[in-house]
């Protein structure tokens, strides 16, 4: 009955009770805000047009037909040129557009680097900048996803007709 009578009392005034009330309010408030914000986030995820689903696999070539340390250029359906490099560890797909001013880089098989002719930018075989303006900017060549299935190499990318 003691508990029940508390129900009907007015707001407590002693400092300990005030602090307890404040803490419980903060706890409740944060819980409500965080959970509902998360729910709202899920709602936005639902409503926001998703492009991830439009990714599809594109056949680019066969492992056995690409020598290690070499690269070849794949013309993607969207018009992008993508360099596929065979490294010792696997394959990597890099855009051929220099992040500096948009010139086309090319692969140099002798030392396994990419070179941008416009301002002498150099990238290593992973697309990381070595020297020239790209290194100053700290900008790497954009990467694409590669998937292999047995001997077959696929690119995974968004395709727009």
């Amino acid at each position, binding site marked *: *009955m003691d508990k*029940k*009578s508390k*129900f*009907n009392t007015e707001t407590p005034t002693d400092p300990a009770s005030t602090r307890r009330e404040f803490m419980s309010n903060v706890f409740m408030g944060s819980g*409500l805000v965080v*959970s509902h914000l998360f*729910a709202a986030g*899920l*709602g936005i*995820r*639902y*409503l926001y047009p*998703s492009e991830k*689903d439009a990714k599809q696999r594109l056949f680019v070539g066969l492992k056995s037909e690409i020598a290690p340390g070499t690269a070849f250029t794949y013309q993607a359906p969207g018009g992008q040129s993508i360099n596929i490099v065979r490294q010792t560890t696997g394959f990597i797909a890099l855009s051929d557009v220099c992040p500096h001013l948009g010139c086309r880089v090319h692969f140099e098989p002798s030392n396994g680097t990419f070179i941008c002719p416009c301002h002498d930018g150099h990238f290593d075989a992973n697309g990381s900048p070595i020297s020239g303006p790209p290194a100053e900017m700290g900008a790497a060549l954009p990467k694409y996803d590669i998937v292999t299935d047995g001997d077959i190499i696929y690119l995974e990318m968004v395709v727009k007709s």
Partner: protein
Amino acid sequence: MTAMEWVKSRFPVDQQSIILRLQEPVPNHLKRWWWCLGGMPAYLFIIQVITGVILAFYYVPEPSRAYESVARISHEIPLGWWVRSLHKWSANLMIVTVILHTMRVFFTGAFRAPRELNWIFGALLLIITLVFGFTGYSLVYEQLAYWGATVATNLADTVPLVGTYIARFIRGGSEIGPDTLTRFFVFHIGILPTLVLVFLSLHILMVRTHGVTELHFEDEDPKEKQTFRFYPDHILTELMIGVGLLIAISAVAVIWPPELSEKANPLVTPAHIKPEWYFYFTFRWLKIAGLNAAVLTLGLASAIFVFWPFADKALTRVFKRDLTVPLGIVAVLGIFALTIWEAMAH
């Protein structure tokens, strides 16, 4: 301070008076969970509005694309399965809680003078909720939904005098056709929500003006204060229930996401057609009583249900005793039995 004053002069609402109004005392019996059923449908209605609105972003109310758009929501749109599942489960729970709330009000006699009008609003809200469920189910455009709609509109057809016209109006033609789905859609997202808002406002307004019926129980201490504050005490109780509901429907939504059965085929009636569970009793009654008798009895029963406070008064005058509880028990058991019967039938 000047900013506050600027706001206050443009938005002249006195917060103190709102809080004061919210702090109005409510009777102690509301501390019992059983008396919190009325808030739950309102809460669920808000969830329905939110999930319904965002479902409408992808749903296409057109016979040739409706099913595909639901399939897209279920399988393609990120989290679409969840939103659809929430909408479905929350709808089912809303029907359950509305029925429970109605039963509570009925058996405690809270519909009596001067609250007859509020019973009527509540009864209409229950009927609207059922129509909500029916139209929503039809929008999925599954085989069962389609044939459910066919049976229901043909049922309306048999109502004496006006039946044909009502059925024709609902269907948008003499047969289920391209306009039927559009009509169901407009009912579901436009007319019914508006009606709910209107009746719900009236319902709450009535509760506020009359106050709730006060009830006393034996285990109460008569020396204790007879009331407690609506805010924050009762609001917090409702909040507990609300978040509990959110957890419950989110959980069932993940565990039992709604499936998508075969697409509606106007040429093939499925072997076993069944409505949603809340129409089982009407469906079974239809099988027992025959078409015309069932439609007439159901119509009559609905009318008695809506105008029960007056029926109650008349009955008491005639039989010289209160028949609410025995009649209520008979009705509930009858409906329950018919529902179970239909559920057991394959």
